[in-house]
């Protein structure tokens, strides 16, 4: 989702620990290692994910240092997926099963045979499917540690956290009301146990 263009939905994180030594020197190399790779038209890979230029989702080469906008590191996580519409898969499977039954003079096909047919049809259709591309922007303030990721889906956010760790060797801590409260208490020099003792407020009598 676009943090730079239009409206966006995003999740926040804080990086844990300090930046690794020689962080800037190896940044280009680390990003290149996990940059987005196009799905090969001839392959049957269903999915590809990696970093692209935040200002241009078709640029995965980072020929310059487009990701570095000090104090930020900014990129997009691009995820391409090939998907076969379920109804199309069903239709092609039925046609293939009917053809085999006719050729082999069979009335029924066993479950295992039908599973094999389904897999063969799926692989054949996968080569014809055009990948759908989605991009999720990421802005990381390397001074404050704040990371803004343009997505709120738990599945994609989990994938982002893994990809971030692989690329930068840094864990991300998801922000939630509790962790935000902890940050406030840390700043105030107060005990973190104060939050652990809290329970929901009963505003109305008889609740």
């Amino acid at each position, binding site marked *: 989702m676009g*943090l*730079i*263009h239009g*409206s*966006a*939905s*995003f*999740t*926040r994180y804080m990086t844990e620990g300090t930046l690794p030594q020689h962080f800037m020197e190896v940044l280009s190399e680390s990003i290149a290692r996990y940059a987005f790779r196009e799905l090969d038209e001839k392959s049957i890979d269903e999915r590809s994910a990696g970093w692209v230029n*935040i*200002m241009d989702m078709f640029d995965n080469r980072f020929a310059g240092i487009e990701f570095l*906008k000090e104090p*930020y590191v*900014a990129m997009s996580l691009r995820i391409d997926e090939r998907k076969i519409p379920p109804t199309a898969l069903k239709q092609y499977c039925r046609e293939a099963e009917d053809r085999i039954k006719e050729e082999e003079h069979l009335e029924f096909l066993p479950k295992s045979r039908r599973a094999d047919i389904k897999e063969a049809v799926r692989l054949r259709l996968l080569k014809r499917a055009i990948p759908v591309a989605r991009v999720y922007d990421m*802005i990381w*303030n390397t001074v404050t540690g*704040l990371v*803004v990721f343009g997505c*709120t889906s738990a599945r994609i956010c989990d994938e982002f956290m893994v990809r971030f760790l692989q690329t930068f060797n840094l864990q991300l*801590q*998801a*922000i*939630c*009301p*509790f*962790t*935000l*409260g902890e*940050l*406030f*208490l840390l*700043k105030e020099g107060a005990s973190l146990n*104060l*939050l652990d003792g*809290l*329970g*929901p*407020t009963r*505003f*109305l*009598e008889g*609740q």
Partner: protein
Amino acid sequence: MQLLDKVRKTEFLGREFLLWLWFKSETGEGIFDLGDKGKAELWLDGKITLQSENERGVETITCTGEALNMKEARFALAGEKEIRQATVKLAIGDNQWSFVLDSTWMNFRSFKTPRVINDGKEDPDGLFYEKAFLIEEAISAMDRIYASFIGDRLSPEWLTETRSAIARWIRQGATGGVTQPLSAEREMD
């Protein structure tokens, strides 16, 4: 405690924060001090989602409207429903942001910054920096406001004053009563 356990155990903090924000904004206390960043005004406007869990299961209501009091939503509060997400308007100086704040993770959805000057055609980096600044400014303001909520929530006054003031405000909403500014309420007390 694992993060997910913490999130589950303290989910109420996000819900109480949204309630506190709504209460503050409707009782004339929706202006928050941001220190050297000046002041921020905040109010709920647009869609609000409330939810309750009981023996009948989960009940959710969503109210949409621009009416300041959002009567139906106020009525739902009196019916033990809690705020799950709300559309928030935030103003700092001449800039205004709009976003939906979610109570569980404090995620921002449908986040709109003030209009940017740079269209990005001639200076893409200029557009990037302007957007990044506006995103961080809103996050930083919301974090300060949340910190002020946590301060309030941990103070002894939460149980002796704030809780009863919010309860009164909820009851007023259920009967369609007029919301009094908090300052006037304090004088009456």
